[in-house]
């Protein structure tokens, strides 16, 4: 046995460090991020200055926080088109409960978390129960929540936004936790960036180092095979949807706490941005493959490009064109890299 193992180890060495790196799903995105950073740094001094970095990291963090669970869900083989609109639902729920119903702010946070978990559960339950594509189920949830967000907000507030959270008792502590800034190199960095890094690390740890992570890859890779070896695929799927909703709760409340106000239309259209970040980060649309770190790097690329275009003094009308081109490039690069890596193993 030892002889066999030794021989096998020699062959591992043959595979080579570069190729082992190449098969990591986030590798392509990392290269892309470096290229884009260098590119915009040449275009603009401000882009690479601490103030500039603080700014594009802030933009990236709002996308990145959601991209992590969205990527995990994609690895598990599903989409959540309601991920964006749920951010609004969470923030609005907290806002209405505190500023209109006078509920304690922490009780409201717990209540809105329960609400979001319930929404995630409904998504997951319907997907597993009906076997319909999650695309359709969550599209329904997306449209439904859009209506609820607007309907309830207008019913309660008579306007399309909930304001004045900053006047609620207990707000300042929350603001420190979710919406304050940390001074680095004399420039204010949003604390959300720290949360983003933390959640990315947690997501990556869960994916690669836990049983649950193994089940996520398995459920997305081949649900039937997984079921046959005893993986609780339905529970995994439901948990992933609930995880996405829980993160929407975090992001939505970060927004309302940071600004003191939130609008009924918040998050609509963002769901696709999260998916774009996950795909740029190496997630397969068909599930079973991808990485949480990759999704965060995808969000970083998104944030850098969005702000970089402004720093480079280009016309921001063209921003979406760059995003589209980048998405296509990322997908093609990922496909090429994966083929190359897999061929080299034979």
């Amino acid at each position, binding site marked *: 046995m030892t002889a*066999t193992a030794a021989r096998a180890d020699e*062959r591992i060495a043959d595979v080579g460090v570069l190729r082992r790196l190449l098969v990591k799903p986030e590798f392509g995105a990392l290269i892309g991020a470096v290229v884009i950073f260098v590119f915009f740094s040449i275009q603009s001094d401000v882009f690479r200055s601490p103030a500039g970095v603080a700014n594009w990291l802030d933009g990236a963090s709002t996308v990145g926080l959601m991209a992590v669970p969205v990527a995990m869900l994609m690895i598990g083989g599903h989409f959540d088109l309601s991920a964006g609109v749920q951010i609004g639902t969470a923030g609005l729920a907290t806002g209405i409960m505190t500023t209109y119903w006078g509920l304690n702010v922490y009780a409201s946070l717990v209540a809105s978390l329960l609400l979001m978990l319930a929404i995630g559960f409904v998504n997951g339950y319907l997907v597993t129960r009906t076997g319909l594509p999650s695309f359709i189920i969550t599209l329904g949830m997306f449209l439904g929540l859009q209506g609820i967000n607007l309907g309830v907000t207008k019913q309660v507030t008579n306007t399309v936004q909930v304001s004045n959270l900053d006047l609620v008792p207990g707000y300042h502590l929350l603001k420190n936790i979710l919406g304050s800034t940390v001074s680095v190199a004399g420039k204010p960095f949003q604390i959300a960036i720290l949360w983003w890094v933390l959640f990315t690390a947690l997501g990556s740890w869960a994916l690669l180092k836990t049983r649950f992570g193994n089940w996520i*890859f*398995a459920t997305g890779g*081949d649900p039937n*095979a997984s079921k046959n*070896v*005893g993986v609780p695929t339905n529970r995994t799927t439901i948990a992933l949807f609930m995880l996405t909703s829980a993160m929407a709760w975090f992001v939505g409340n970060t927004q309302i706490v940071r600004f003191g106000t939130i609008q009924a239309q918040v998050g609509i259209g963002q769901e696709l941005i999260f998916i774009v970040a996950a795909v740029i980060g190496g997630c397969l649309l068909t599930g*079973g493959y991808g990485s949480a770190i990759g999704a965060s790097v995808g969000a970083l690329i998104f944030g850098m490009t969005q702000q970089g275009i402004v720093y480079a003094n280009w016309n921001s009308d063209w921003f979406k064109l760059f995003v589209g081109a980048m998405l296509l490039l990322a997908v093609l690069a990922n496909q090429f890299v994966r083929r190359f890596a897999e061929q080299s193993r034979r």
Partner: protein
Amino acid sequence: MSDIEITEASEVSPGADDVPLLEIRDVTKMFGSVISLSDISTTVRAGQVTCVLGDNGAGKSTFIKILSGVYQPDRGDVLMDGEPVRFSSPREALDAGVATVFQDLAVVPLMAVWRNFFLGSEPTKGWGPFRRFDAETAKKITRAEMADMGIDIRDLDQPVGTLSGGERQSVAIARAVHFGARLLILDEPTSALGVKQAGTVLKYIVQARDKGLGVIFITHNPHHAYPVGDRFLLLKRGKSLGDFAKSEISLAELTRLMAGGAELEQLAHELEREGDKSETSALGRELLDDTKTLG
């Protein structure tokens, strides 16, 4: 296949009072008014291979699903170690030591070999929220178990999808063996494989048998079944054409029964009479020759 040497099962020579690992008595399964399996009986002993042969629609998959707990029989008994058992779920069957390797192998192509090996039964270490998948142990065991089956996996991090068909089978079989299977059910493991690959899989079957497992080998190819089998159950349209020990049947007889026997002879004659010198007559003659030599 010729280059693979298949050794005969070591003669355990079970006594008459010896209790078989698994016994199936007059099992019947109906779906509505359709009889899918009717009065099927056979036995599987530890350290032996029972082959279940049949064409498409013979009831092989219903047979597997009853043993693996997906279906429950309408009539008849399944006995393990002489005790009647009734599996109401695949989990119960697994817990009783019945492991089924389905045709899709229950492996996830995009996942690494070691992740697949422990899929659904991951070893963990740590405590509470820090409980994590013990990757080192998993890799170590996977390598050892695979080596034990005579398979040398180059890179455990390699996705299973990049393995060859035979290697993939071996992962599934090694996994079943590791997780304490006493009875291994293999669903058409050789059907999608080339000659050489099929030979390798037959070798794994022998390995599992020699480890003392009872093996049920489902196939429609008598040439694959005969060299490794100790017992042969022939199914046709849900009925048993017979349950033979190896000493009771030759490969030729097995092939004839599988091919449809008398029916095939009749078909061959018909084709010859009608076609005369055309191509069909050639086919007919061939068929006739075949059945004669087998006869």
